[in-house]
């Protein structure tokens, strides 16, 4: 198959800076060389390709928007988004790893942590000497995290955590967990290190989606953590939601990469697959499908770029992030399904990336705020009436 050249129907690249293009192309090459040759195998075996992590760290993919003094690239949000797009063209699971490390672990430590926490953790997380995870969702509290059961209790020399978290990306392999728990009925953030007594993180098995990614439970049974492991600068439930907003922004970009590879695969396939004496690309029904995919990808690109530009000026609102996450994941999933139709039975084989991407996107549609919750967030924003509280 020929090398992926991106999808650019409206000269999108003319809106990017030289650095942004070089960053995107560099990650694209990295994905071509390192992820695509191995990912189907890891996915089928249900294993995370951990050997990629040091390479990704060396290239500076973790915490890439954070300041240089922590060893980070200090790049803008658009460049970060383009990195996510290219990584997810590889696999949503690999992109999820980078999202979690950057947006859900490094971002909260940077935003809510003490100077000592930042100085200790951020350089190690940037170099991936330490891996992190983020625990907010619980078995019974997903869309409604405010109802969480996990509790912290203050003792003279420590905090004691009790409770359980679920659906935690990187949980089992994480050296540190950013855990949200109620202390005196108010949500606070804590850093829990691997090996702490009373803390375990068993892997969840049997997934049909994100198979090249580790998903875990986090269990706290009288887990004592040092006093200095609480985040000093949080403000209730708003703080973990700020983290999710960062991650959702990355997802909005990421799934464009997934959609692009589905479209690109379907386009190439339809040009070479001959039925009734001509390539199926020559049939009206196929052309309608291809044009629909291209249209949605083009719309996503421009909306998400503008969201990134707003974010770089600190003018983006979380409702705008919700709209982009909601739209882009749903469209990428739909594009994956249409691409599978064009490939016919071949579409279900691991020889093509489509089924893997589509199965991944079923998770992405639900995690980091379900499609439905994002509908209601934007719904409340435009009507002024909350439908879920």
């Amino acid at each position, binding site marked *: 198959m020929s090398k992926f050249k991106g999808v650019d129907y409206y000269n999108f690249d003319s809106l990017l800076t030289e650095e942004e293009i070089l*960053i995107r192309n*560099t990650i694209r090459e990295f994905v071509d060389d390192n992820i695509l040759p191995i990912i189907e195998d890891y996915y089928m075996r249900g294993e995370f390709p951990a050997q990629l992590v040091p390479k990704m760290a060396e290239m500076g993919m973790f915490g890439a928007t954070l300041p240089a003094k922590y060893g980070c*690239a*200090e790049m803008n949000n658009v460049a970060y988004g383009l990195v996510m797009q290219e990584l997810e063209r590889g696999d949503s699971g690999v992109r999820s790893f980078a999202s979690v490390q950057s947006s859900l672990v490094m971002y909260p430590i940077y935003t809510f942590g003490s100077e000592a926490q930042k100085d200790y953790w951020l350089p190690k997380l940037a170099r991936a000497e330490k891996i992190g995870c983020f625990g907010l969702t619980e078995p019974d509290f997903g869309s409604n995290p405010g109802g969480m059961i996990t509790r912290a209790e203050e003792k003279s020399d420590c905090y004691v955590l009790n409770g359980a978290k679920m659906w935690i990306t990187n949980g089992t392999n994480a050296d540190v967990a950013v855990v949200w728990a109620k202390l005196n009925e108010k949500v606070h953030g804590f850093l829990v290190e691997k090996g702490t007594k009373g803390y375990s993180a068993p892997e969840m098995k049997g997934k049909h989606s994100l198979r090249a990614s580790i998903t875990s439970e986090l269990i706290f049974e009288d887990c004592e953590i040092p006093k200095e492991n609480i985040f000093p600068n949080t403000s209730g439930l708003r703080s973990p939601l700020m983290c999710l907003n960062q991650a959702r922004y990355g997802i909005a970009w990421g799934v464009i990469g997934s959609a692009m590879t589905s479209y690109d695969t379907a386009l190439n396939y339809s040009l070479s697959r001959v039925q009734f004496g001509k390539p199926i690309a020559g049939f009206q029904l196929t052309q309608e499908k291809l044009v629909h995919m291209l249209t949605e990808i083009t719309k996503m690109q421009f909306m998400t770029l503008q969201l990134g530009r707003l974010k770089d000026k600190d003018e983006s609102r979380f409702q705008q992030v919700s709209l982009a996450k909601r739209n882009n994941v749903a469209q990428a999933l739909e594009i994956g399904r249409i691409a599978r139709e064009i490939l016919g039975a071949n579409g279900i084989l691991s020889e093509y990336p489509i089924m893997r991407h589509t199965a991944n996107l079923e998770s992405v549609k639900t995690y980091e705020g379900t499609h439905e919750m994002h509908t209601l967030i934007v719904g409340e924003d435009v009507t002024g009436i909350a439908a879920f509280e």
Partner: protein
Amino acid sequence: MKIAVCVNHVPDTEAKVRISSDGKTIDKAGINFILNPYDEIAVEQGLQLKEKFGGEVIVVSLGGDSNKETLRKALAMGADKAVLLKDDSIRDSFAVAAALADALKEINPDVILLGKQSIDYDNSQMVGLVGELLNLPSVSVVVKLEIQDNKIICEREIEGGHEKVESQLPIVLSVQKGLCEPRYPSLKGIMAAKSKPIEEKQIPAVNSKVETISLRMPQSKAAGKIVGTDSTAVKELVRLLHEEAKVI
């Protein structure tokens, strides 16, 4: 150690090249240009020498403003500064080498590295021409090198084997695949490259000694031949492979 690397801005290996209406040049519209892959190996080797011996890596390119993309990539990989010899006119290998040699004389490097060829016109002349114009030794198609004090030992790829040669610095080397694996620019490197200097220089015209008369596309391949569809065709297939295609 002062290391200079000459880099060329060439059409992507996957680009579909079309000939312009003048019949002598390629139509650049819609073509993606990249850092010449052999020059990328030269940049990597330059960076490795700097990491081992200290000093600086200066990248030099001849061409128009668009060559800055290629210089920026070399800076993102870790080169310290760049020089753009600004001239987009058509030059033969000699006229290119003359411009490079002028600039290199001023830089006065210990080691000058370049790719064994540019994948656009494939002349493979730069190493010899630049060496001659600077009155320096030159070694081509280097796959291994070792430097001790002023002495350099290189291994060259030759037909059916390797040749080991010894020379002195300063020297001009052209590099071949296998010498080292080019690194990806890191995101930090790309951000840092923004503030690294690209010095632009106007350069004098030099008369070319060789003129391109015309370009033509390769002839398209003839259609394949189906010998048969079952096992009875094997004998005929083997005969054709042996007698016509002469591959077995």
